[in-house]
Each structure stands twice: as C-alpha cells, then as structure tokens.
C-alpha cells in the first residue's frame, strides 16, 4: 500500500500543498486578526473595494490587448505597455491646448471625446506599426526571437517618447465635471472612479461582443485556434493579426486616457508597470481568454488594494503596501500551481499528443 502511494504522490506535490497551505493559513490568520483588531470600519473596507475595482478595470482593459495578441501570435507583446503610454501622452498635449483655449471648461464632453479619439488613434497606430515592423517579419521564427524584438520595441518606444515629449512629468488639466463625489446608497464614491469603472465595463462588453459576434471577430478566433486551417478557409491571416493589434491598441489607448483622467500624470515610463501588471492579469485569468483577462485584471486590482491591509496588517507587518506587488505575484504563482491554466482556463488550441 505504501509502495503504491509512494509511486503516485511525488515530493513536489507535497511541498506544493505545504506551501499553499501555509500561505492560506497565514492569510486566514492575518485576516482574522486584522478584523478582530477593528482598525478598519466597514466604510474603510468598501473604500478599499472600490479603489481596487477602479484600478482593476484599467488593468483589465490593457490585459485584453495582451491576451488577444497572445491568442493569435502566442507571444508576450512586451511593447503593449508602451502602446498604452503613447496614447495618453500624446493626448496630454491636446488636453492642454484645449484647456488653454477654455474649450475644455466650456465643452467638457466634446473635449474628453477628442482626447479619447486622439489617444486611441495614436495607440492604435503604434500597435499596428510595431506589429508590422517588429513582429511580422519573424512569423515562424522560434518563439524567443519575437520576445526580444518586443523588448527592443518597448525600449525604443519609451525613449522615443522621452526624446519627443521630454522626460518630465506632465499633468493632465483638471476637468471640473469629473471632480467630486456621488453618494450611491449612502456610500461616498468618487465620480471619476465610477466613470472609469463604467467606461471600462462598457468598452470590454463592446470588445467581447465584437470578438464573439462579428465576422471579423470570428475570423480572429479562427486564426488563434489554428492559423493554417484559418488560411485554408480563406481568412487573410496577416490582416486578422493586424486587426488584433489594432483592437488591442484601441483598448490600450482608451485605458490610457482613463488612467490619465484618474491619476492625472503622464510620463514616458508610465507604461512599464501597468503593462507588467496587465500581463500578469491576463495570465491570472487564463491567457488567450478575453473574459479571463477581464476577471484577472479586476482580481489583481482588488488584491492590490485589499490584500495588504487585510492579510498583512494583522500579522504585524509594517508598511504592508510596499509589499502589494509581492502579494500580487505570490497570488499569481499560487493560482498557477493549483490551476495551471489560470482562473478561467486558457483558450488555446492545445495540440499535445
């Protein structure tokens, strides 16, 4: 009996369960003692949740770009963070010009639409060009090669925008109608956060329906299932890949403006960290899977906002918010251990044996 058991359960399984169990216990213990200490009131917790939700919906929007590109090309598009940066950075100049001419204050809705249009256009163009120049010639090369060009493109774009627009921090002008609070069910909520959450959800729904229902969407899905078969069915694979990048670029541009409206600052380096987080979110949800990316993004946002206070405070760890990325990545590794294909599972044609 023992022999049988020994053959089937490996040491690594045991170690993994032990690590997982220990972390789970720590989290539970931390949560319980945090709540018992009563440091935070109910409204604090609600605030944490809303903050996390707003940040998470932006991650989710960027993550859809990652996940779609991964779906069709099976590569990490390292430059996607820079696509995200390029739109709002350019949009800043439009916003400032409109602010100077008082257009922004007199016609805020029109102004915001213009900013979105400019930013989404720039992001889309950058995404399209990156694919065309850096990835397309390498179709069929081993998978690490486009990874390096992606890294190269990322550096190039960062320092291109630094060179063009300067290395300083540029702040978006205040838009009066976006400031202040709303009371929703007796909870004080920031207007901008509500707007960001709603806008992100609407955009993601549009995107999801586009992919699921339209002809082009179906063609993209076909390409991500099997390029050769799709080509045989008369689908123009290159065009579909370009379309994927265009859609991803548009989503990233929109996410970038939402981000800029919420945090007000744009900077040439601003894409790196959200890009990394969004990719993490995409993997967390199950890469190649659009609802997964959305879920992963929101999950990540919530973890970053809630987890340090909830898990670590009770354990007596000082400055827990410094560790929020560490928590996020630990969560990622844990999820991948026990669900190796992400929360919702990957949607990739798995052609193994």
């Amino acid at each position, binding site marked *: 009996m023992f022999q049988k058991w020994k053959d089937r359960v490996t040491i690594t399984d045991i170690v993994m369960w032990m690590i997982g169990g220990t972390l789970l216990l720590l989290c539970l213990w931390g949560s319980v003692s945090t709540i018992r200490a009563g*440091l*935070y*009131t109910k*409204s*604090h917790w609600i*605030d*944490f949740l809303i*903050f*996390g939700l*707003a*940040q998470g919906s932006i991650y989710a929007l960027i993550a859809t770009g990652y996940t779609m590109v991964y779906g069709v090309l099976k590569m990490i598009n390292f430059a996607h963070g820079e696509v995200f940066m390029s739109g709002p950075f350019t949009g800043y100049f439009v916003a400032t010009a409109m602010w100077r001419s008082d257009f922004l204050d007199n016609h805020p809705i029109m102004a915001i639409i213009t900013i979105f249009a400019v930013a989404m256009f720039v992001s889309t163009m950058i995404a399209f060009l990156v694919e065309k120049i850096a990835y397309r010639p390498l179709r069929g090369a081993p998978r690490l090669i486009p990874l390096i060009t992606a890294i190269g493109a990322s550096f190039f774009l960062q*320092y291109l925008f*630094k060179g063009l627009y*300067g*290395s*300083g*921090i*540029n*702040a978006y002008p*205040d838009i009066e109608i976006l400031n202040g609070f709303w009371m929703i069910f007796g909870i*004080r909520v*920031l207007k901008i956060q509500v707007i960001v959450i709603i806008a992100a959800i609407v955009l993601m729904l549009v995107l999801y329906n586009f992919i699921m229902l339209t002809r082009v969407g179906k063609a993209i899905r076909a390409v991500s299932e099997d390029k050769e078969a799709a080509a045989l069915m008369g689908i123009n694979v290159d065009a579909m890949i370009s379309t994927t990048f265009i859609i991803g670029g548009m989503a990233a541009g929109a996410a970038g403006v939402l*981000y800029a409206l919420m*945090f*007000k*600052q744009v*900077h040439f*380096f601003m894409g*790196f*960290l959200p890009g990394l987080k969004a990719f993490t979110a995409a993997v967390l949800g199950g890469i190649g899977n659009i609802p997964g990316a959305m879920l992963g993004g929101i999950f990540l946002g919530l973890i*970053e*906002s*809630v987890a*340090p*206070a909830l898990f670590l*405070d009770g354990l007596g760890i*000082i*400055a*827990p*918010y*410094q560790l*929020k*990325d560490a928590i996020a990545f630990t969560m990622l590794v844990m999820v991948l251990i026990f669900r190796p294909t992400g929360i919702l599972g990957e949607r990739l044609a798995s052609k193994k044996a």
Partner: protein
Amino acid sequence: MKNVLKVFVAVCFLLSVAAMPAVAGNVVKLQKGEPVHLAYWFVTSGANTSLGMDTFRGVEIAIEDFGGKLKGHPIKLTGQDEMCGPEGGQAAASKIASDPSVIASIGSNCSSAAKPGVPILWKMGIPNVSPSNTAPFLTDPASGPDFDGYLRTCHNDKIQGAVAAEFAFTKLGLKKAATIHDGSVYAEQLQQVFADTFTKLGGTITSQEAVSPGDTDMRPVLTKIASGKPEFIYLPMFIAESGHVTRQCKEVAGLEKVALMSADGSFSPDFLKAAGKAVIGMYHSSPDFSALGDSYGKFLEKHKAKYGISPEAPFHAHAYDAAMLILNAIDKVAVVSGDTLEIDREALVKAMYATKGMKGLTGTITCDEHGDCADPKIAVYKTSEADLKAGLMPTVPFWKKY
C-alpha cells in the same frame, strides 16, 4: 595561419603598450586652446531620468553664465550615466577617472552611485561636487579618506528631516503624524529622521508607510493611514509619488483636513501641476530662496528659453551652484604662464573646500571641513492659491527656525 597569429599577437602587444597609462601629474597643463575639462555623472536613463536631465541643464546654464571660458580656455563638459545605482556609479566614475584631462567632476545624483564612485575619482585626484546626494554618510568623517575630495551643494538629510519634525510639532502644534516613503534611499532616510525627531519631541507616529516607485493608486495606503487618525502626514518623495499622494489625500475619507508636508524632492513648479488644487495649503521644506529669488527667476527664464521647458525635478539650482563652485575655485588657482594654463589639483581641492560666502541660487554657499557646502537654512513654505495660479512655488518662507 601561424603568421596571422604572430601578427595578431604583435598587434595586441602594441595596442596594450600604447594603452599603458602613465602616471598623471599633479599639475594639469593646458596648451593654448585646450579646454578646461569638467565631467558630470548624472542619471540619464531609467525612471529617474528627469532628475539627471535637470541637474545637467543646471550645469550647462552655469557654464554659460560663467561665460563659457575660463582664462581664455573654453570649458568642456562631458558626461556619464550613473544609472542611479552603485554599478552605474562605479562604471561612470571609472570612465571619468580614466581620462587624465578631467579636472573636476559634478555628480552623482543618487547617493547609492556616489558610494562606490567617489573613491575611484579621488584616487585619481579628481575632486567631486554633488548637487543632489543627501545621504549623511558621504560627508561623515567616519567614512574615511576615500571621501576627502567630496563636496556637496545640497544639504544633509539629517537637517531637513529634523526641521520638518520641529515645524510640525512646535509651530503647528500637532501631536500625531504619519509618514510615507517610496523606498528610495532619499525618502526613506528623511522620513526616518523625521520620525525619530518627532518622537523625541514628544509626538506620536501613527504609522510609517511605504509605496513603490511608479505606484499611482495611493488611495488604499492612504485609507490605511486614515485609520490611525493622524493630524499630519510627511511625504518626502519625488514629484510623481508626492503628487499622487497629495491629490488623493483629499479623496480619502478622514484625511480631508490633515496637514501635508513634503521636502525639496518635490519643491518644483511641476509639482503644482502634478498635485493640482490639492496643493493649496501644503507645506514644503526647502532651502531658503527668499534672499535670492531674483537670480533664481532669471535662471528659470534662461532654462525655458534654452530647453523649451521648465525644470522638471529638484536640484537643478544645486547643480548650478556646484558648477559655479568648481569654476570659481579653478579660476582662483589656475595660473597663466605664457601660453599654458596650469592647474594644481591639490590647490584646487583646497580652494574648493575654502569656498566661503559664494552667492548661489540656493543660498550662500560656504563649505565646512567635511565638504558640506549647502546653506543649511531650511525654511518651510506654504503653497497658496496665488502660487498655484502663477505656476510657481512660493518664494517667501512660511516659517524658519533661525
């Protein structure tokens, strides 16, 4: 094949011999037309680029203001990227030290780069002035003779953190404070000095929080701070992070009325943009500009004309002063003999250390025997609505201790 090898070996040998450095003399002799060579080592890539670009521009404007020439010799400025870290600092310093024509250097931006870099420079007899290393150990006598050629025109963090604590406790009469830092060497040290002093004075630190550089969503950590109900938050970080905290503080329940204070790391017009309206009523500690506001204004004008933008980070004025300090000292010790200009390195260092009462942008520059040259007159400023409208940081101190 063998022949090729032989040739190859011979060429290598010749090259190596050619590369053998001779011992540099203690006196630099410049022929007619040869430039006075200064080197800078600032951070010019990565997330802290704006700090490096800014200090670099400060130096460039200083050289222009000096006239671009020193006793008929042009002034040449070359530079390295210290990458805000020890490895970058070491490489940058090695590059500067390997060029015997370098007379003095300005840098580094980050204290962590200065630590391994400064001794390398000093071994070659190159004195160094930093515009932005605020870490105390660099001018601490205990750090040994390796740092004997090191001076700085920015203040020591020990002073600034303590001033902030005294201000909060005695002037504002607040007893409960919280701090936030971003894990940078600079901010971490400042908030620690603040916390220590504040506790010593009798106050309570409700929490010492930290964020990561590049973080944008500060609301969760502010909510955590709010749970301790502080009356005062000290956030001595750089523009981006301080800006986020300042803006978002007003949006977090329980912190609407709390007093905020930052340090010179974010004392810049850009901070007004970054923080927006939330900046009204906020405090900053910074060197006392009040007597010299005029020359600083002129500096800003020149900057705008030359680079198309305003300074983007703190310490550009310190960099200006650092360059001026060096140029003045060289001017003092350089001897014209016939066609050549002779600069004695030892005399130069002495002259630099002997700088007294130099009118700089950041105050009156006087060096002590450890190399701290900054005017330690740290004043506290309060930003008003008028300042925000004008787009400039306040120039009149709100409070000063001296």
